[in-house]
């Protein structure tokens, strides 16, 4: 393993057994047919990289993390790890509901290998990050789910490690929490930590990730390094998302229609992603279709709660096409710097959704002023 490599995975497999019949005498179900949750994968992850792993449920991404975290043993292959690993496969693991948040900090910290003295040094920072100091002595069973997660996450990001494994940390929680997660992951990266994030919302991590890996049936279907360009001019500011990835996001509501988005890219002349809202944006979708009735292709701009804040549509006439490019142009000056996401809907003539591609790309902006809103309307304020 080279000195720049944090994790080297060679021919890794994990076999599980499908339970067939449970026995009254055994805790385990009888061994049924075996299947490979992770199937002969090889992968190198460099030090200081953020790797975003996505894929369908049951595709093997969490199993991979569990093997790296030593929770479960590989069936074949080998993982070589250089550095201390902190695995966060579930937020709030081991919390005791009846005891206070303060006491749970020590309990959870001990589970992640922190000594009492280490936790004591960080306790103020953890409570500060938690954000509800007045509730710190309240039993956690009285916490809202958001408070529960905030406390757990505050503990986690204070663990000192070289490699962090996060499994679905953003699956719950509000927009603010998600923003906090991405911000903290960026901060960990700035300390040269290596981070693996398993997520079903890769768009959230598109800005901070160095590499995307898509799992499919235990194998890596796509592994792509992302180079965010820094040259001025018309460039692809966000990565192209592959056909496999888009297929993962696709939600089919009517399976009689054949319509696929095979590629999405966002073009802008902005120097970097921080300034993406200053310039004109072009969202280019490459589509394949074969339809016997005309449909509407709707592009939506959504806030992080999924509410549509703007949309535009184009009619796709009856017929078929392969690799047809459809472009939606957003002029500069209309969108304010904010966290928005883009989605696509294919609608029939009655405006019924046939196919959805929700939340494909998001543009996290951590410094959004909550009073500024999303759209820049020419509203004038005057005084008389």
């Amino acid at each position: 393993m080279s000195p720049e490599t944090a994790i080297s995975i060679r021919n890794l497999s994990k076999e599980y057994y499908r339970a067939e019949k449970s026995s009254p005498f055994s805790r385990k179900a009888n061994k049924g047919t075996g299947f490979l949750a992770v199937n002969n994968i090889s992968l190198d992850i460099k030090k200081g990289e953020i790797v975003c792993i996505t894929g369908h449920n049951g595709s093997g991404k969490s199993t991979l993390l569990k093997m790296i975290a030593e929770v479960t043993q590989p069936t074949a292959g080998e993982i070589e790890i250089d550095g201390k690993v902190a695995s966060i496969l579930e937020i709030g693991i081991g919390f005791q509901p009846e005891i206070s948040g303060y006491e749970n900090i020590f309990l959870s910290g001990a589970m992640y290998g922190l000594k009492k003295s280490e936790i004591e040094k960080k306790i103020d920072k953890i409570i500060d990050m938690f954000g509800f100091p007045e509730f710190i002595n309240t039993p956690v069973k009285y916490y809202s789910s958001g408070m529960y997660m905030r406390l757990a996450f505050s503990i986690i990001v204070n663990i000192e490690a070289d490699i962090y494994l996060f499994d679905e940390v953003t699956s719950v929680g509000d927009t603010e929490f998600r923003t906090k997660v991405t911000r903290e992951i960026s901060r960990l990266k700035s300390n040269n930590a290596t981070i693996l994030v398993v997520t079903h919302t890769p768009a959230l991590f598109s800005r901070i990730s160095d590499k995307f890996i898509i799992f499919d049936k235990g194998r890596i279907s796509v592994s792509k390094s992302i180079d965010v360009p820094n040259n001025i001019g018309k460039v692809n500011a966000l990565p192209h998302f592959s056909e496999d990835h888009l297929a993962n996001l696709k939600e089919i509501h009517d399976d009689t229609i054949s319509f696929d988005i095979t590629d999405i890219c966002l073009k802008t002349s902005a120097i970097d992603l921080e300034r993406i809202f200053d310039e004109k944006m072009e969202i280019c979708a490459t589509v394949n279709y074969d339809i016997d009735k005309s449909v509407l292709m709707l592009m939506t701009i959504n806030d992080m709660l999924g509410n549509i804040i703007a949309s535009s549509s184009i009619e796709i006439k009856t017929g078929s096409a392969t690799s047809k490019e459809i472009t939606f142009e957003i002029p500069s000056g209309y969108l304010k710097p904010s966290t928005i996401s883009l989605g696509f809907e294919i609608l029939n003539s009655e405006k019924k959704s046939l196919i959805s591609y929700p939340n494909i790309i998001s543009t996290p902006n951590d410094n959004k002023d909550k009073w500024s809103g999303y759209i820049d309307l020419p509203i004038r304020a005057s005084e008389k």
Partner: protein
Amino acid sequence: MTKIISPDGHIGTLDYLKSIWASRHLAITLAKGEVKNQSSMNITGIFLNIIQSLIGLAIYWIVFGVAIGINTGEIPYPVFVLPGIFIWHYFSAITGYCSNCFLLSQNLIDKLYFPRICIPISKVLLGLVDFTIGFILFVILFICFGQTFTINWLAFPLIFIMIIICVSSIGLFISFISLFSMDTTRIAAQLTNFLIFITPVFYPDTIIPENFKFILYINPVAGIIEYARWSLLGTPLPDFKYLIGIAFTICLAIAVFFIFKKYEKRITDLM
């Protein structure tokens, strides 16, 4: 610090001991968390344990001390019976806790790696709370009944270590068996209900006929209780044959350590 994870999952004996030692805070914290969790859920809190011990003591006193009139020599029956009660309660509590400890911690085991042996060890530590309460209660009764401290008390730390080894080895063994069978919890509960009658908890071993005493000799808890009575109450030094049961638990402790070492990385998959 490069680590290799491979299917054989071999851990060296010294490395395993080191990892257990490094996780001692976790075992202590798990036990503390559970004590706090349990005591905050009950109105009676920690006093429930004292009440339970006192009720148990009162029943044994009435049934065996007064009604049956078991002869305990010059030692008042409550003082005589209490070391047996708190040692037995410790043993039976750990047997119960360990028989389903992995099942109850499945979510934790499935999400975080730490030496799995920490889970049953935390149960052994958890049981020490009741043990300590029982011991304090015994000291109070000992003084109230006007008993005098003898030099044998100095041997109690050694007996305490024997108690820990005995309880840990049996608890850890049961916890390991529970990975394979759902019936462990119920079988363990039935066995402890039965074993109390062949353990000198509420009677002295002198009432057992000589040709049946081998049952006590191979019972490690019996030996420990007899040695504890010798240390705390000044009863005659127990027969050296009681060391058979104690030697058995020491062998079991060593065996259990190596079993856990071998299966350490496979426990998640065994569940």
